[in-house]
């Protein structure tokens, strides 16, 4: 049969019509719809038995109790632990989204050694044995050459078991160079030591205080103290008066009953001015000062020399002068002083989670306000918390090499004659390395916690110093900025898959130890840093090996914590409220057994550095004011992680479009200042400081003092993952350190800056 065109067409059309009469097209339509409802690339989470495991968040020093919901061996969601004494169920976004980091692309999945040039991102997988052998050999070699002191270790804490073991290792090995990364509380802790004779932290009873005077503390902006402060704020009735002193209307300032926008850098003067009014009007706690104060009035030392007391010191800070320095009105200063002094349970807080470091003078001046109120060791007051004593130490013997090494001066200059009482000076490290002639004074660097290449001020100088260090080991859990520049990666497990002890967080008014524990099985080929250190010690042998009689970290924790371990295993935390009711007679451990006011402490602090002149009230920022007429100040936000570990993608997702737009970060500028520089909303601009420059966009904000440029801290990452890196610029890289002559610590409250339309 010949099929002609007509026949063919009839067949096709007939076939088409016929098919529609069968169920085939209708079934297909239905099937396609069902397929679209079950696309194989849209995941279906597996169900299983659900559990809630108590643990603690370990991403910042805040120490918030968490409850992790697990399904099978999967960590699903992190919620606040309602009965945890620190945060009572409150959590910041970072803690809630920690599972993203845990399972995310930023994790280092096993030990690796550098395969290309430093920073090239080429890595070769190696075994743990090989990794540990490499470190052992390097350390053994340095020791043989008599240079154990050229080994340095950087850690973000000196308070948990892991950091104690590291410090112990260095001592047994022969290096004095255990360095803690900087935090805004450094000066405050030094002030505590100088005025009260105690190494530890200052606790504030935020839940019961009726007046909180915060000198720029990021109480509700940053996460360090957020868990405790926000849960306290949630509990408080509206009678609690929070006063925030800050040049920018931060979230803390926005929630405060009163926002006091003093010029940045003038906080010390303001605190002394408030002291002036309180002393002048006789509003201070006379009983406390009589019984427990020292150097309030002028005093004589043993040699018979007269020194000015606090009363004399604040004499010069009359409200009119303070008004000039701070930009506030005399009325505001007077009334602030009076309302603080008249409050029943006032606390004055400084250096708790603020974006910029504070000077020793500011810490002392603010702390002195608490002494004027005499509100120590009682509900709603200030509590002095010791360093953790839960780790019971076995004695250790060290050999001659170690002993000689430990005698060497610290590479960062802390504890030297000049800065006798300062324990760590991380910001002096880059300078010490960069200015050294010949070999770097640091031949091997162990970075165990912390991310110095990101968090230290003046990134360019830090990078230069790191280039000079021949051997860098990173123990980081994540591919952070420091790990990127390391030679060897020995990844530490995430806190959701390992044991980690968390000591009392800063600001807490009583001792709390929490325990992070394996919520699920380890995801990758990681090892706790402490386990690695114990192994290296064993490999090195001799006295060093003998100093580490533990199998591993868990064994160490169990033995050290003994009785507390059971409580920790059971409820996730161990709390000691005894520290709350110590009588005032025993709390001050200074030479005078009293709270020592400003002048003597200052003398003590400056002992040996030749600077006897009182009054470093304002830290001068480096740079030429003519070329850089503005001041760049960092600010921190609860939604941006400013520390060693970057944001989670969820946190970045919460940011407004006038904080980060595509890859640009916005700086906040007062519209008045912006118009002086011809800048309008959203404009691209360049910010220049002595330390560097950055491309930014402009966000006009009425809530910032004219003359300032505020930039969020925590952006401009290069490490982690594509979800995190490449957004904005690192503000700390733009701020050169300004050395506090009293402590040696960095006290740069900002950086002189210029801005121009790009």
């Amino acid at each position: 049969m010949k099929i002609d065109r007509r026949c063919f067409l009839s067949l096709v059309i007939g076939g088409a019509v016929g098919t529609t009469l069968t169920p085939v097209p209708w079934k297909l339509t239905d099937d396609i719809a069902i397929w679209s409802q079950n696309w194989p690339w849209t995941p279906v989470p597996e169900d299983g038995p659900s559990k809630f495991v108590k643990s603690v968040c370990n991403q910042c020093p805040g120490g918030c109790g968490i409850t992790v919901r697990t399904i099978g061996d999967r960590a699903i969601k992190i919620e606040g632990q309602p009965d945890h004494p620190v945060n009572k169920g409150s959590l910041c976004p970072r803690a809630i989204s920690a599972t993203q980091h845990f399972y995310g692309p930023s994790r280092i999945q096993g030990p690796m050694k550098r395969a290309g040039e430093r920073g090239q991102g080429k890595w070769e997988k190696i075994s743990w044995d090989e990794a540990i052998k490499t470190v052992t050999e390097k350390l053994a070699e340095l020791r043989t050459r008599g240079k154990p002191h050229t080994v340095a270790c950087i850690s973000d804490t000196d308070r948990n078991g892991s950091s104690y073991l590291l410090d112990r290792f260095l001592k047994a090995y022969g290096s004095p160079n255990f360095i803690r990364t900087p935090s805004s509380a450094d000066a405050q802790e030094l002030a505590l030591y100088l005025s009260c004779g105690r190494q530890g932290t200052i606790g504030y009873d935020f839940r019961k205080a009726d007046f909180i005077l915060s000198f720029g503390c990021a109480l509700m902006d940053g996460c360090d103290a957020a868990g405790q402060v926000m849960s306290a704020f949630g509990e408080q009735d509206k009678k609690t008066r929070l006063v925030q002193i800050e040049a920018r209307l931060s979230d803390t300032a926005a929630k405060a009953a009163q926002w006091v926008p003093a010029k940045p850098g003038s906080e010390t003067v303001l605190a002394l001015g408030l002291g002036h009014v309180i002393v002048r009007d006789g509003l201070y706690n006379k009983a406390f000062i009589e019984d427990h104060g020292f150097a309030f009035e002028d005093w004589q030392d043993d040699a018979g020399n007269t020194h000015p007391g606090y009363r004399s010191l604040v004499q010069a800070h009359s409200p009119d002068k303070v008004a000039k320095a701070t930009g506030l009105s005399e009325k505001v200063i007077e009334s602030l002083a009076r309302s603080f002094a008249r409050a029943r349970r006032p606390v004055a807080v400084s250096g708790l989670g603020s974006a910029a470091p504070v000077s020793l003078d500011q810490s002392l001046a603010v702390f002195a306000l608490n002494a004027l109120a005499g509100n120590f060791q009682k509900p709603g007051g200030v509590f002095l918390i010791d360093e953790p004593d839960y780790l019971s130490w076995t004695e250790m013997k060290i050999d001659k090499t170690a002993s000689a090494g430990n005698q060497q001066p610290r590479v960062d200059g802390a504890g030297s004659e000049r800065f006798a009482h300062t324990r760590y000076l991380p910001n002096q490290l880059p300078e010490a390395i960069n200015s050294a002639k010949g070999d770097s004074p640091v031949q091997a660097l162990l970075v165990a916690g912390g991310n110095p290449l990101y968090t230290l001020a003046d990134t360019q100088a830090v990078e230069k110093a790191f280039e000079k260090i021949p051997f860098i080991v990173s123990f980081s859990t994540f591919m952070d900025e420091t790990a990127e520049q390391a030679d060897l990666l020995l990844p530490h497990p995430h806190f959701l898959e390992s044991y980690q002890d968390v000591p009392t967080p800063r600001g807490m008014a009583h001792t709390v130890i929490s325990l992070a524990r394996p919520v699920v099985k380890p995801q990758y080929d990681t090892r706790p840093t402490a386990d690695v250190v114990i192994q290296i010690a064993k490999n090195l042998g001799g006295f060093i090996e003998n100093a580490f009689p533990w199998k591993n970290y868990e064994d160490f924790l169990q033995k050290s914590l003994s009785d507390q371990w059971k409580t920790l295993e059971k409820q996730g935390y161990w709390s000691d409220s005894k520290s709350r009711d110590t009588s005032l007679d025993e709390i001050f451990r200074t030479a005078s057994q009293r709270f020592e006011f400003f002048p003597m402490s200052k003398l003590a602090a400056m002992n040996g550095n030749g600077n006897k002149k009182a009054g470093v009230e304002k830290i001068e920022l480096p740079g030429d004011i003519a070329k850089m007429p503005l001041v760049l100040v960092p600010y921190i936000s609860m939604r941006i992680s400013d520390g060693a570990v970057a944001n989670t993608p969820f946190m970045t997702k919460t940011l407004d479009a006038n904080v980060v737009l595509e890859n640009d970060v916005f700086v906040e500028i007062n519209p008045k200042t912006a118009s002086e520089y011809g800048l309008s909303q959203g404009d691209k601009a360049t910010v220049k400081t002595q330390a560097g420059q950055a491309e930014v966009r402009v966000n006009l904000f009425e809530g910032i003092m004219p003359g300032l440029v505020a930039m969020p801290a925590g952006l401009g990452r290069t490490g982690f993952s594509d979800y995190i890196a490449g957004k904005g610029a690192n503000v700390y890289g733009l701020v050169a350190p300004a050395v506090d002559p009293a402590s040696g610590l960095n006290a740069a409250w900002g950086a002189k800056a210029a801005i121009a339309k790009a």
Partner: protein
Amino acid sequence: MTQQPQHTKTKRYGMVIDLDKCTGCGACMVACYAENNVPFRQDESDKMRSLNWIRVMKVDNGKPFPDTQVCYIPMPCMQCDGQHMQGHSPCVSVCPAVATDYDQTTGIVSQIYTRCFGCRYCMAACPYHARKFNWWDPKWPADMEKYLNPDVSARMRGVVEKCSFCYHRYQKARDKAYVEGREELHEDEYQTACAQACPTNAITFGDLHNPEHSVYSRSRSKTAFRLLERLNTNPKVYYLSSKSWVRRKADNYLEGENFEQIREKARKAAATH
């Protein structure tokens, strides 16, 4: 919108958010993402294409330094009761395929992702921009699929989603109560992820009909208000603020109108429901 059998007592689940307590920390948003398997992308700065079931808006009083004040306003789905309180919320009545519905027993507006075919009419209808479209296929890099919550299904590209007041938590609590032979749920048995996560307890959640729940009295307080009340959408999300300028920003008023008076009238009217 079908009538439910009368043997269960009708609930009106709602939220009261104290703006004096909200610090804008973003914990509610992040808790919501984690609870509800909300995906994320490398660049989320286009806020009009960013999946958020609850967004925290930053609002200022427009005054120059140093008299500036800011206030954060968290905005979940308002779970509108609609005109005449009958469940004809702006979105439910327009959905051509009944992919979104008003549950008469709880007052919660649901969204059925497998039913929705992405016409986005509901998004055009919602005055709060509470509804979000899946512009992309969701993707969880590395091992992140492991943290997905099995109680909430992941959404595919091309459908609309929104806050469900964590309805899966209601189902779980209800099932538990049923097994235990109870009809009523305790206040703390059913809480949304955002209310649970709010670190300052700014967000409270419960049955607006039940005097034992804190939202009952809080929603009837003098400083309570809702957003865009004059549109008659009858939201079940209430706000509290001691600041008059904040209350003023919640709705539109003509020049010369006394907004506090209008608000007070609306508040009293709402309280009678």
